């Protein structure tokens, strides 16, 4: 055990810190979950890409640095420490890309990954449907074979598609075998949202941003080259993504460490009138962010030794999502009767609180996650 960083890791951190301090936009960009803001964020992603900070863990050939998982964590720590903007490319680089690396063809990787990393092509996910939320296997959207044109014709509705109104492409599951039920007979498609038959309707979220979208597909043609993995095997293909979605990459400790530090600073600014129980909540949030950091180093060390992570990922998702809620709740308590303001200096906390409230819901509700922990980590009967 050696809890100091290697010289390489320290050098990597120093380089990242220097570049971020020099380049993180000031003042902060507008929300990337609005049409105006999204454009600014694409520029920022382009700047990250040009400096090879967009996808540090990817191969150099695709714009990365072949960084280790540990270096990736260090980058994340520095990114949020520097107040770096949200990553509007997140669904592509963290959810789709791992699947492409694992199951995509060389042609798909070469064609898709570089534009994804540079934000030239932005991606949104198309999992949920009106009747397929927690129960993803309830997917009804279908794809019919079009041999004449060498592809498929997709129809149906996807919903809660984050930034779907601004993104270029969508990845998701469609039912290719109408006879098959539940998890069977699904195929993983990559869909061009500019294609004929696609209608996207923005949906306003709690915080007022049009960060959601409903995507309606009517007989939309998708060529065979945009099928990811084997036909009818979409569930197995998607699991790689939801695995990583619940796992390491979606919300690394760096953002919570940065938020906990901001919370501690907010406490100091309000220390004179802060309630003692709120002080304790600040301390606990800070400790929990640190606990998440060390639990992650523990896991990453195992992974770098060739180990694997499985259903434990559900513990991680429960932990960060509920920490994020407590952390912002505590900030609002510090702000007291001024917490409700959404146009003041501290309005970011109310915005962050509303964002945090989505954590226990998306990527598998925490009720589902606790079932997974009980059944697959502890081995309790499914019933």
């Amino acid at each position, binding site marked *: 055990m050696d809890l100091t960083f290697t010289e390489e890791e320290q050098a990597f951190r120093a380089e990242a810190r220097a570049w971020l301090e020099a380049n993180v936009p000031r003042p902060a960009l507008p929300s990337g979950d609005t049409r105006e803001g999204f454009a600014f964020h694409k520029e920022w992603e382009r700047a990250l890409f040009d400096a090879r900070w967009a996808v540090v863990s990817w191969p150099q050939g695709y714009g990365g640095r072949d960084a280790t998982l540990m270096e990736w964590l260090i980058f994340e720590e520095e990114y949020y420490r520097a107040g770096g903007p949200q990553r509007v490319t997140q669904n592509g680089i963290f959810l789709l890309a791992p699947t492409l690396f694992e199951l995509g063809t060389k042609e798909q990787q070469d064609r898709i990954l570089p534009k994804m990393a540079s934000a030239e092509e932005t991606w949104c996910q198309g999992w949920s449907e009106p*009747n397929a*939320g927690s129960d993803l296997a309830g997917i009804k959207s279908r794809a019919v074979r079009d041999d004449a044109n060498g592809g498929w014709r997709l129809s149906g509705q996807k919903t809660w598609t984050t930034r779907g109104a601004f993104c270029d492409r969508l990845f998701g599951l469609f039912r290719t075998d109408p006879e098959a039920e539940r998890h069977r007979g699904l195929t993983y498609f990559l869909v061009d949202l500019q294609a004929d038959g696609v209608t996207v309707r923005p949906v*306003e979220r709690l915080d007022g941003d049009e960060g*959601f979208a409903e995507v309606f597909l009517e007989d939309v043609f998708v060529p065979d080259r945009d099928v990811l993995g084997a036909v009818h095997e979409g569930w197995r293909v998607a699991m790689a993504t939801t695995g990583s979605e619940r796992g390491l990459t979606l919300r690394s400790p760096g953002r919570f460490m940065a938020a906990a530090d901001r919370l501690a600073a907010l406490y100091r600014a309000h220390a004179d009138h802060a309630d003692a129980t709120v002080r304790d909540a600040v301390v606990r949030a800070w400790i929990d962010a640190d606990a998440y950091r060390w639990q992650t180093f523990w896991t990453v060390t195992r992974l770098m030794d060739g180990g694997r992570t499985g259903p434990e990922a559900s513990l991680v998702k429960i932990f960060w999502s509920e920490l994020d809620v407590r952390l912002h709740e505590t900030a*609002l308590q510090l702000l*007291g009767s001024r917490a409700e303001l959404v146009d*003041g200096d501290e309005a970011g906390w109310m915005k962050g609180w509303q964002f945090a409230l989505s954590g226990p819901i998306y990527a598998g509700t925490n*009720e589902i996650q606790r079932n997974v922990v009980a059944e697959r980590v502890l081995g309790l009967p499914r019933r």
Partner: protein
Amino acid sequence: MRFAFSDEQMAMRDGVRGFLEHECPPKVVRDAWTNDTGRSGLWPRLGEMGVLGVLAPEAQGGFGGDFLDLVLLLEETGRAALPEPIVEHAAVVLPLLDDERVAAAAAGDLTITVAPPSGLVAYGGDADLVLFDDEFVEPSALQACESVDGSRRLFATAAPPASIDVDALDRAALGVAAQLIGLADRMLTMTVDYAKERHQFGVPIGSFQAVKHHLANVALALEFARPLVYRAAWSIANGDDARPVHVGMAKARASEAALLAGRVALQVHGAIGYTTEYDLHLFMKRAWALAASWGDAAWHDDRVGRAILDSDTIPEEQ
């Protein structure tokens, strides 16, 4: 010991509930997010119905009632998320007005709001008068600012008031506590209904034990917060010396019940509840705002704590 409302009080509650169900559906609250005043347009009719003038003397056209007559009506305005400064006007200000103004206020010809310790005046821009410290001033020099609850229009005073009369603060805190009970009840009902309809995995999500227990916890918080609110209303109506302690208990537990109801409602609804197209957010955001106004749970718990822990004898329970 008789802890129940009179038939008259229940009848008036039912009347106001029916009126608001019909006249203040979620659409009215939603419209208040975007209209000029942030208000419902129902103020004059609330005056006609006598809701605004419950605490006004009959001689001035009021109902000549006390806080027990008012508390259930305020609970209903919470249930409907009525976008009006009704707690400020009907619960805080009315008892402080001279005869000329009280009649106009009871009739709804005037709208009078209050500058709370935070200096954030609800509906200050559209009010005729603002109670600032112990005087009524024109709402001039107020700075508009934006609340997370778009139907709750806030205006900041140049400086917060120097002092607030403790009885006025208690009436405000308890009025808001009553609204929080109504909001919590509304969100619980909405969520129970949704949990019965919404199916996943081939069954209503309300049949999952985790959902059941979330909702049972909300029912629990409501069941034990509500009597504290009614008890404190009695204490105010009867000038009980311990009313600040009783109000503190009521506001603390009512604030927590409403915040819990909102959390559970959102979690059980999932993504649909996370959209502004769905009505839940109208009630949830009101609950966030009111739970923190006129003293949050921690502030009122401290207030109660000073009374029960920092004196040598605990207030005799009788």
